[in-house]
């Protein structure tokens, strides 16, 4: 079973995506902010991280940069999930080290395809 870490501070969005991923057979861990995301990634070594970018404590951009700077976690792909649909936001996420960028509302079949792609 593939384990993914879902980082999302909004309760409804977290619950919704958690359920959908579980129904597709993923084991899903959750984190509510950037700091928890780093801690959980180091501890559980998920196959990939789904990262909301506007997060409390430590935002998704900084959390991704730190994951990419750490030899223990830099191999784990991070997919940015954001409600900011501007092209500049995509560049910002990719510059931080994200492997892919998906906008909300999430196109779930597309997200699954991207998840399969970045794991290769």
């Amino acid at each position, binding site marked *: 079973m593939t384990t993914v870490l879902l980082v999302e501070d*909004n309760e*409804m*969005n977290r619950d*919704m*995506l958690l*359920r*959908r991923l579980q*129904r597709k057979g993923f084991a899903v861990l959750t984190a509510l902010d950037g700091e928890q995301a780093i801690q959980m990634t180091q501890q559980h070594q998920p196959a990939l991280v789904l990262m909301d970018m*506007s997060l409390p404590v430590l935002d998704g951009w900084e959390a991704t940069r730190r994951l990419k700077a750490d030899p223990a976690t830099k191999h784990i792909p991070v997919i940015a999930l954001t*409600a*900011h*649909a*501007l*092209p*500049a936001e995509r560049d910002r996420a990719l510059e931080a080290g994200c492997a892919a960028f998906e*906008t*909300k*509302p*999430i196109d*779930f079949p597309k997200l699954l395809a991207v998840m399969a792609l970045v794991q290769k």
Partner: protein
Amino acid sequence: MTVAAPGVPDAVRATLESWGWRLSEEHPDATLTISGQSLEIRTCAAIHADDIAFLPLREEELRRRIELAQHRRARLAKRLHDLRSPLNAIQGYAEIIAETAEGDAFRYASNIRTASELLTARLENMRDEGV
């Protein structure tokens, strides 16, 4: 201030440089294009210009217009972001229901999803048009 000024006459470019402004396509504060006797100001890749400045240019005036346009754009981006978040939950839960429900419940959930997709498309248009 850094501005991109594609197709803008050399005289206008020289004026901008005389103010100490940088002319660059990389992360400009605004893109300026010429339209008749006026200068169109865009702070993102939008269909409609954010504002228009008339020639000849005055530094303080142009700076103020660019800053105002940037401010309006940032406010719009935040509003669209705030709308997309709950829309994500509505659409996602509707899809979960549609995956398992049958009959009327399936039809209702499908309609919620379709309406939500329509709303998303309208938000995209608002962003592109800078409304």
